[in-house]
């Protein structure tokens, strides 16, 4: 490495992309989703039966409580995330409103797909999310999560009973929409696996890009600062 090159890398500016509240939301959301998947799985297929007096245990009750508590965290977090998309910086809007009407953006999605099929030699450089990530996050973490929140509260309202706001706002129209309660359970359960698939791919991609692309990722979601390997012009500058 020549002196000039070394100097260039050192002087590559870092950009502050993810503000504190957004990072906090990311990790709380990730934790809540993990709790929801584990507890949800055991609601569908409970642990082996316990013997003894019923009054000595509340295992299923605690599992369901964990699920509902995390469910509220997700729902309130989602409302907060919408609020933050309005008041936060430019990058806070990408999750909820990807630039779907930009041809360049779709070109970027295409490039990323080719990159993942090992057809592109060079990774691109992004300040914000890469276009493919944006599409996936938007689909799974906006619409997928909304689906889980709506069906989840519809199931929750059934337990709360008619007259509760959960029943009136969610169960009363969502249950008949799907047919009956059992169908809502099945769809709610099926979409858990969609979320699981997103999480697998998301974590893999985050770590892989951190290693193989031109910018930092995991540390960015922790500290908020995006670091770069070179000072080339970023490929998503057209977005601003």
């Amino acid at each position, binding site marked *: 490495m020549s002196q000039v090159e070394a100097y260039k890398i050192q002087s590559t500016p870092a950009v502050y992309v993810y503000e504190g509240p957004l990072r906090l939301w990311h990790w709380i959301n990730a934790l809540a989703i993990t709790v929801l998947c584990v507890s949800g799985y055991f609601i569908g297929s409970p642990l082996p039966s316990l013997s003894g007096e019923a009054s000595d245990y509340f295992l299923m009750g605690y599992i369901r409580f964990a699920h509902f508590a995390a469910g509220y965290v997700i729902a309130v977090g989602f409302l907060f995330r919408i609020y933050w998309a309005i008041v936060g910086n430019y990058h806070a809007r990408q999750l909820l409103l990807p630039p779907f009407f930009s041809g360049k953006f779709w070109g970027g999605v295409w490039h990323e797909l080719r990159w993942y099929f090992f057809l592109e030699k060079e990774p691109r450089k992004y300040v914000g999310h890469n276009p493919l990530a944006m599409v996936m996050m938007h689909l799974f973490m906006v619409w997928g999560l909304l689906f889980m929140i709506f069906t989840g509260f519809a199931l929750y309202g059934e337990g709360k009973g008619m007259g509760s706001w959960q029943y009136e706002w969610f169960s009363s129209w969502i249950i008949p929409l799907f047919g009956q309660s*059992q169908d809502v359970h099945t769809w709610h359960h099926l979409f858990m696996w969609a979320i699981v698939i997103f999480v697998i791919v998301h974590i893999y991609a985050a770590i892989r890009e951190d290693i193989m692309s031109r910018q930092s990722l995991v540390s960015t979601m922790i500290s908020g600062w995006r670091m770069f390997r070179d000072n080339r012009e970023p490929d998503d500058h057209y977005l601003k």
Partner: protein
Amino acid sequence: MTETFYEVMRRQGITRRSFLKYCSLTAAALGLGPSFVPKIAHAMETKPRIPILWLHGLECTCCSESFIRSAHPLAKDVILSMVSLDYDDTLMAAAGHQAEAIISETIDKYDGNFILAVEGNPPLNQEGMSCIIAGKPFNEQLMHVAKHCKAIISWGSCASYGCVQAAAPNPTGATPIHKVINDKPIIKVPGCPPIAEVMTAVVTYILTFERFPELDRQGRPKMFYSQRIHDKCYRRPHFDAGQFVETWDDEAARKGYCLYKMGCKGPTTYNACSTIRWNEGTSFPIQAGHGCIGCSEDGFWDKGSWYARLTDIKQFGVESNADKVGGTAAAVVGAATAAHMAASAVKRAKQKGE
């Protein structure tokens, strides 16, 4: 002058004392306070009797069988004396042309002012050939009577949702009442059959107050269908504790643990079995050791095994459920991710080597 309810009852040999007792029983069954007793009595004494025509389409008569076994013999006598006078081909004395004449008579006399109760449903395929009443497809009789009635009671899961004859692939095209009639108020009283006391209470409410009780969005009376079996099940403490029957006749089954893992549909079924119970409050399926099969829910025949907790997903083969479909998809994606990881490592190693 048409008779009042009270007059009909007296004519049927019911004493005034029994009549008043019936009024308070009814108020209790409907969850109304004692102040409603005189109101019900007054209504019965002054209102002209509203006749009921009880038609039978594709059905198994379990609704009628349930109905005539109502726990309060009094309520049963009273209501039968009001209903059976008109048309119900299981209960009435008349037969053949005589019976069919009752229909046109009622329509002439009470046009727009009688209740149509339907047990079963019309099959619409093959020009309705799968259910012939008095030489004509049932659907014709239904349409004709429905045009003149005031309101409709859909008895049981057949009339409400279609039930077994509408289960996939539904060869006769059995169709629930609300899908063939949309210009009359309809109350659904689902169940296969519905609970006797629920049926008599619904009839009494409609006859005394001349309107439907409060309905939910799906048209079921809230007073009996607002809670799930699971919400009032006496095995619920075992559910919350995590104590389940794992196989039939295991120790847990003998101890009366929760039947969730044996496919109990109590958590998704709206009905009053766990509170009112059956056969004069003697028992109900879960009390007898068998999970709820969800007979009062839409399409319960088509949701896979009654003995599996997770619903079958037919689109993905015979024995699939959400965990099998989703778990397989996740495993495939996981394997693809691992392969991708390996390929990426190779690519990096090559680049480093260059």
